[in-house]
Structures are given as structure tokens and as C-alpha cells.
């Protein structure tokens, strides 16, 4: 037998770097119920038998290496952003890609739509879920996860079960953060109770809405879901320009290109619509959904398909007005009357004199407005208040010094050493010891006592 057949190497191949975390497959990519990045993080933590907070802190945070990055304690109030369009979501996606070897995790966030979706009012601050989905996945032994759709502010209902999404736990009645230290798919992160339930338990929570309203809510969920489902199939990134183009095409058909007319029909400021048409600005997702609902065109059709002839805005108003807070009417202030009022306050020997804040409250006019109109009088009122405060302060200090003097004498007479602590107990305002002149009073009182020739007791 030859030597090379006789021997066998035992050294292992050297380049065997394995991924630190399991490679977990995201659920539902390319469907309405695409998994969210937060949900994948939580499932990954569960697979490793760790609380998500621990996983974020020990594994993810060092990779992101930024103060706002993975440390859950610092980002609790912003955890929704981990599913969103910005850098936090992209950072987490790339960190998890590095750790688990899984690819394309940005598809689990709204990052591919960052050009089209302004982040304002985009994502819910609290976790929302469909209990029927949870229960179904549990009974059919499917993966329990959270779709990205549920985290959107504009989506109120589950497209598959036609019920409202829940936001508070039926057991502890608390709300959940989108990502908490103890998050777990399907369970309340506060009390760890199972959140799934059958449709019968829900008492058909959509019943509170009229038929039109509930139809609209489900239409919105469906339409936004379809948009998310199309994410992986985007051939080129959708830009502001393509959005503006789609907008102009629709306006051409609805009002012959008359932006003002279109804006009037939508009850929107025409400038705003004009900015959208020029690609300078973008509507928030809820406004976009509203417009699409009125145009009877799903979000994805609005973007990708050329509108057909004879479309018009449907006059449905179930979604309510777009601008819920109409601009306040300018308020007319009777300056003569105001001046008189101020004069009365200034000359009145009220004790203590009121500060400007209090005056503004009494007159029900904003402090800055009064100041703009009558700066001199305002300054005078403030000066009067300041002066009074100074005098009061001085008086309090004198009072404290007197109290200290008495306290020191009292302590000596009882044979006790007048320490600061002991003196403080006998004062009506011990906090005043923070002032130098007050504390000096102790020293002075002791000195006076000594010069009178009495012996100090042992401390």
C-alpha cells in the first residue's frame, strides 16, 4: 500500500464561518400578509429561547453600533420605526441579514416605499392584531407571526376575517409596544396571555359601524395589503415623479386637468394638490388611501395602471372629511378693553400680585399676544411680581435665621449639640438651609452662645 493511501489527513477545512443565528424564513412575502421585520426579530428570539430584548441588546446592538440602534431600553417609544421607511428599519434588516444569513429582509419593512410614504402618521404607536388570525394559525399549526399590514395606522380591519384589529389585551387591558423586551408572537407582552380567539368571541366588533363604513375599512385593508404584496415584484423603485404622473393622469380624467376643481371635490386646499401634482410633495398614506377610495381604484392600480375613461370621484363621505381640524377663525381682540383690564390689575393692590401667566389666564388671551400689544404694561406687571417675590424671599430668610437662633438655644438647653440635621428638624422650612446666609446663622448662634461663657456640651 502506498503512503498516501496509508495516511489520512485529520485537519478540518479552515473557512467554515457559520451564521451566528438561525436562518429563519420570513412568512408570506409577496402576499397581503407579508411578515414584518419586528415579527421576524421576535420569532428569531423565540427560536433561540431568548427574550427579544436580550437578542437585540447582546447580538443586534453591537452590529448596529449606534446609540439609537438595537438597545431596546433606548428605543422603546420608537420601536414602530423598525418596520418603517427609515434608517432604523434598514439598520435592523441588514444586521439580521448579517447575523442569520437570510437575504432581502428589507422587504419586511416599508423601506421599498420610502419615496412614496411620508413617515407622519404612517405606523401605529401600539401593537395591533387580529385574534382570529392568531387562533387559525394556532389550530392549523402554522407559523404564528405578525403581518406588516397590522402595523399600519391606516389599516383598522383584518382583510381576511373582516373584523377590527385589537389594540389592547383582553386579559390585562393594556396596550403593547410594537417591540417589547418580552414580546412573543401571539401573546401579550405584558401578561403573556394568548391573544387569539374565535370569531364568535369577538361579538362582531364591526357591527358598531354602518355597512358603508365597514365596507370602506375592509376595502382599505385589502388595498393596502395588495400594495404590500407587490413589494417584491417592483421592477424599478417607485419615485415621487411616477406618483405625480399618476396623479395628473387621474386629474385629467376627473376634472379635465383642473387642479382647483379636483381639490374642491376632495375638499382639500388647492395648493396642496398642486404640490402633489408637481411631485414636490406627497400626501400621507391615509390621504392617498382616501383619494383612491373616492376614485374607486386600488393603491397599486392608481400607481401602475393608466386610468380608464369616465372616472369620477364617488361622493361617499364615510371616511369623514380629510382635514378633521378646520383652520381656526382669526380672533378679534378689543384692545381698549384689554388695556383697561391691564391697568386695573396693575393698579390694584392685590397681594400677592399675579404673574403675567396668571393674568393671561384670567383674560383668556395668550400671554404672548398681550405682550405684543402692550409690552410696557406687561413688563410693569412682571416687575411688580418680581419685586414682591424678592421681598418675600428676604423675609423668609430672616424668618429662618430667627428660627435657627431659637433652635440652637433650645438644643443647647437640652444638652444636645446643634448639628445641621438637628437644627433642620426644628425649622419650618429646612430647605432654606441651602442658602449660605441661613446656614451661617447656625455658626453665628453657636459663637454667640460661646462668648456668653457657657460651656459646650460634648457632641
Amino acid at each position, binding site marked *: 500500500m502506498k503512503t498516501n*493511501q*496509508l495516511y489520512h*489527513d485529520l*485537519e478540518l477545512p479552515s473557512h467554515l464561518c*457559520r451564521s451566528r443565528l438561525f*436562518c429563519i424564513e420570513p412568512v408570506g412575502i409577496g402576499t397581503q400578509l407579508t411578515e414584518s421585520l419586528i415579527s421576524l426579530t421576535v420569532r428569531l428570539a423565540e427560536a433561540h*429561547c431568548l427574550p427579544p430584548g436580550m437578542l437585540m441588546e447582546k447580538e443586534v446592538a453591537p452590529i448596529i453600533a449606534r446609540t439609537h440602534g438595537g438597545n431596546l431600553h433606548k428605543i422603546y417609544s420608537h420601536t414602530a420605526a423598525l418596520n418603517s421607511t427609515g434608517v432604523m428599519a434598514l439598520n435592523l434588516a441588514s444586521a439580521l441579514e448579517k447575523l*442569520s444569513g437570510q437575504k432581502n429582509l428589507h422587504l419586511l419593512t416599508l423601506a421599498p416605499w420610502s419615496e412614496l410614504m411620508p413617515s407622519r402618521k404612517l405606523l401605529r404607536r401600539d401593537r395591533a392584531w387580529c385574534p382570529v388570525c392568531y387562533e387559525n394559525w394556532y389550530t392549523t399549526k402554522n407559523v404564528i407571526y405578525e403581518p406588516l399590514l397590522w402595523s399600519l395606522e391606516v389599516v383598522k380591519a383584518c382583510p381576511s376575517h373582516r373584523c377590527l384589529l385589537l389594540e389592547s389585551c383582553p386579559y390585562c387591558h393594556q396596550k403593547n409596544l410594537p417591540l417589547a423586551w*418580552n414580546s412573543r408572537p401571539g401573546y401579550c407582552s405584558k*401578561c403573556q396571555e394568548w391573544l387569539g380567539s374565535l370569531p364568535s368571541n369577538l361579538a362582531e366588533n364591526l357591527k358598531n359601524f354602518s355597512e358603508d363604513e365597514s365596507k370602506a375599512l375592509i376595502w382599505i385593508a385589502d388595498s393596502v395589503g395588495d400594495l404590500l404584496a407587490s413589494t417584491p415584484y417592483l421592477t424599478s423603485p417607485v419615485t415621487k415623479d411616477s406618483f405625480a404622473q399618476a396623479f395628473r393622469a387621474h386629474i385629467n380624467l376627473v376634472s379635465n386637468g383642473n387642479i382647483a376643481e379636483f381639490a374642491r371635490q376632495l375638499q382639500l386646499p388647492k395648493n396642496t394638490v398642486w404640490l402633489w401634482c408637481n411631485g414636490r410633495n406627497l400626501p400621507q398614506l391615509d390621504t392617498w388611501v382616501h383619494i383612491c377610495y373616492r376614485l374607486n381604484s386600488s393603491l397599486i392600480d392608481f400607481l401602475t395602471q393608466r386610468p380608464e375613461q369616465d372616472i369620477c370621484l364617488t361622493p361617499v363621505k364615510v371616511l369623514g372629511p380629510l382635514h378633521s381640524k378646520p383652520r381656526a377663525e382669526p380672533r378679534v381682540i378689543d384692545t381698549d378693553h384689554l388695556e383697561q383690564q391691564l391697568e386695573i390689575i396693575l393698579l390694584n393692590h392685590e397681594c400677592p400680585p399675579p404673574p403675567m401667566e396668571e393674568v393671561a389666564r384670567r383674560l383668556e388671551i395668550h400671554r404672548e399676544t398681550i405682550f405684543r400689544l402692550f409690552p410696557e404694561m406687561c413688563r410693569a406687571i412682571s416687575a411688580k411680581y418680581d419685586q414682591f417675590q424678592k421681598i418675600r424671599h428676604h423675609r423668609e430668610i430672616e424668618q429662618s435665621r430667627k428660627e435657627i437662633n431659637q433652635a440652637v438655644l433650645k438644643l443647647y438647653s437640652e444638652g444636645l449639640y446643634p448639628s445641621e440635621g438637628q437644627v433642620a428638624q426644628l425649622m419650618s422650612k429646612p430647605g432654606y438651609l441651602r442658602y449660605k446666609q441661613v446656614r451661617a446663622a447656625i455658626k453665628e448662634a453657636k459663637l454667640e452662645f460661646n462668648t456668653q461663657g457657657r460651656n459646650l456640651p460634648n457632641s
Partner: protein
Amino acid sequence: MASEHDFSIELLDLSIDQRLEFFKNPGKTIMHRNLKKTFEHLYRIVRNPAGASLILVIGPSGVGKSTLLALLQRKILETSLARMEVDLSWYPIICIEAPAVNRGFRWRPFYKEILLAVDEPCIENKITYDEDCLRRNKDGKLIVATRATEDSLRLAARKVCLHRKPYTLAIDEFEHIGISATNEDIEAHMHCAKSFINESKVPWTAFGTYEMLDFLEINDQLSQRDRIIHFPRYLVEADEDVAEFKRILEQLLRRMPLRQTPRLTSKLFELCYIGSIGKIGTLINWLTNAYDLCLSEEAKTLSFTHLEETIKPEFELAKMLDEAERGEAKLIKSKEKRRAFRARLGFEQGAEGSLAQFNNSTNLKSSDLSEMSEIQPEQENKLKKQTKPFKRSPKRDPVGDKQV
């Protein structure tokens, strides 16, 4: 013989330590016949377990089981490189050693070994969301136990197997499971192992001494889906074994960096066989010691006395031999055992004597049964072929002390 020695001549000018190191840790292993055969068999089964969930590699201590494990690990990694590059989270094989602590075998460190082998994050913080680990304090605040309990480590280890999907979990020194354990303990251990395998869906390859056979006797739960691979020592009764042993011994002697290669005489062979009872691992360790002695004396070559001085004491050798023979008696297939077994199943009559003998010599256990039933059809064919017409059937002859 191609050349007198099997090392580069420059080695002779190096220090004693370096020469010893060359012999001790060559970074490769001698592929002797039994190792090669067992390795090929094992590799085939690991890659295609065909329903087997526990592969037991059984052989006497010092026969080369750990080397076999190293070979297996290397081969599996080598053949998996392409897939490993694509699938970054895949571990083709997880190798651990069953830990032994002073009070015997414990599962907690065992699970930890698995987690350490795959570089699992935050091992000390593992939790299960079971009710046991979730409790509330007096204010009603939820407390999740973050201590790594045995349950949480077990769950984590199971999930490692589920997600990393290795071909097998290879466990060296598996006989540690029986350290200072009662029969009930061992039974419980085997149940634990079985449920772990069932839940994680990853077969185990356990390397151990003949002691492992005792576990199977105690609990036949695992025998349903186990596969035994015997890694035997070389026996002096078989000519081909002797030839192979001589070849290995000669190779080892030629590999010693010495001025003069020791001559392999029949006397030397005999001593070497006695001192190692036919186990190559033991032989190599002993030769290393003898070579060390030889180097320290600055002798020209390895002499008989060097070996005599470093040989293990007789009582130790005898104990080794006892253990090896006891195991072999159970595992080595023989005609008598097979015939007795056939009789037990009612295929042959009048073999009660041999059956009794068989039962006495070895405690029959189901692992043997499965092994035997596997080869039975083949054996039956052989027997059929050997029977010629008009030839007297030997089974009518008196057997044992009973007359037919």
C-alpha cells in the same frame, strides 16, 4: 519495502521534543483496515440513515473511535463545502463529547455542550415561556426567569438541531451516560435521549465502549430504531488480522525518527500484540511512550527493553482484555448463536440445548435481535446452498445434554 524509514532525514537533527511531537501528532492518521471499513460503513449510514435514529459505534477503548469521529467530521465537512457556502446557517455535523462530572452523567452540561458546539448566543440567558418560567411577584408584575434551567437549555439545544439541520449529532464517550447510574437512571437517560431525538429529528451517532450494550439491555426503547456498528480490535486468531496488525506496526516503527529503524521480529510482534491486545490506538500511545524513553536515553534505535519498560501492568491488560472479550461475545456473530435464535423463533427444532447455552453465554437483547434479523435471509440462503440432497442433517444429532 520502498525505503527504510518514513520521515524526512532532517528530523534526526531536531530536538527531542520536536521529534517526539512529529511522532505524536502527525496531523494525520494511519488508515488501517478496520478503521477504513468501519469508517466507510459509518459514513454511508450517517449520510443515509434509512430510518435509523441512533447509530452506535461500539468498540473497545483505544481502538481508535475518536479518530474515527474526527475522520467522519472531516469527510462530512469536506463534502458539504459547496452547500455550506450557500446556506450559511447550516451545520452539516455537530460534534460533542458527553461530559462526565463527579456525580455521574448530567444532562444540563450535555445540552450546554451542544449549544457551545454551535456557538449559540447568550447560553446563560435561555428561557422557555413555559408556566414554570413565568411567574408574578407580589405586586402582580410578570417575572420571566432568565436563568438557564435544564428545561430551557434542553429546548434551546433541540431548536439548534431543528434549525441547523445537521446530518447527525455525533457524541464521543457516550458510555459516560452510565457513570455511577442505577438501572433506573439509565432507563431514564435513554428515555430522555429518545424523546430528544424524536423531537429534534436529528439522528445521533454515539461513540462508546462495549458498556453501551448494557444500556440497550436495560431499555429496549431505543433498539427499535438503532443501528450498531462494531469497531473491532485485531484478533490473533485470524490470519488476515495478524497480517494487518504487522503492517501497521511496521509502518509505525518506520515513522519513528530514529537513526536505525527497529526490526520487526516475531518476538517484537508478539510483545506489541500482548501490550495492546490488538488495539491500534493503545498501540500508538504505548509506542509513543516507548519512543520517548528511547529518545531520553539517546539510544540509536527502539529496543525490546524500551517496550518492556513502558508496557502496561498485567492486571490492567487483563482487565482490558476481559472487557473487550465480554463485548465481543455479545457482538460477534457466530453460527451457534444464529442457530439458537432460529430455534427460538421456531424455525429449527431440537436445539434447546444450544439455546440454553446461548442464553447463558450472552444475555439476549433486542439490539442483537434486530441485527440478526437483518442478516437472517442472507444466512438462510447460505444454509440452503450448503445442504445437499441425501446428506444427513446434523440437527438430529444429540445437542447439549439432551438426546433427541
